[in-house]
């Protein structure tokens, strides 16, 4: 759709249901996937709660959109950076998050992890390397 390939980062900073930012961020990611850019997502601060396994919104009448993260691989959105310190500060580990994977067509459709656990310093370098940062 465009000849320019830019590095697009969607920076997710908030818990999933207290505000609409997380869901409307996902809506941008899904639309943006059609533009064939080099897309990454990062989850920092309370944003790490967006990826928590076993989300149940049935008592709160909120739409549970957590399954959408599992579909991101099908949209070729395969780089999800999660900040290690943000998990630790909230008493969480990688095991508390949804197992998110994608199939690599260049590697006989091998299933690979989408989540990349990075330190705060490493994520700073990743962000520094981006052309565009959408902040939610």
């Amino acid at each position, binding site marked *: 759709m*465009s000849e320019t390939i830019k590095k697009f980062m969607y920076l997710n900073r908030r818990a999933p249901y207290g505000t609409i*930012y997380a869901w409307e961020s996902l809506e*941008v990611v899904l*639309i943006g996937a059609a*533009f064939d*850019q080099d897309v990454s997502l990062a989850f920092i601060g309370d944003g790490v709660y967006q990826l928590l396994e076993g989300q149940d919104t049935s008592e709160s009448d909120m739409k549970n959109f957590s399954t959408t993260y599992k579909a991101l691989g099908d949209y070729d959105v395969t780089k999800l950076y999660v900040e290690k310190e943000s998990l630790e500060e909230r008493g969480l580990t990688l095991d508390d998050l949804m197992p998110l994977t994608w199939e690599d067509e260049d590697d006989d459709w091998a299933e690979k992890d989408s989540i990349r656990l990075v330190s705060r310093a490493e994520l700073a370098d990743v962000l520094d390397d981006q052309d565009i*940062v*959408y*902040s939610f």
Partner: protein
Amino acid sequence: MKFAIQVNEGPYQHQATDSAYQFAKAALDAGHEIMRVFFYHDGVNNGTNLTTPPQDDRNIVNRWSELGKAHDLDMVVCVAAAQRRGIVDEGEMQRNGKDAQNIADGFRISGLGQLIEAGIQSERLMVFGD
């Protein structure tokens, strides 16, 4: 410099929209180009002509309309965010069977693709939000 601006918060509630406006005005005054202003989340409320702020306060919506007119700005309100929050133009009124429209002068309603395109085509995307 060719800028794009994203506004994520509503008028009066949050300073983000004032900062975005002041930035846009300063950038244009300095000779820069603003290829699009995209209103998302509660930012879509910048585009309703039903606001009536007290007379001794700034009129944020009219201010955008005037800046848009003076510089022929492309001011886009996200359709999905607008539908949730009741920002309606002629087309949306007919499509969704509403009996009124409230889009302010100089704004248009369009899709999120316009935000991605702004990211691709601009040299800098400035995000104003919380």
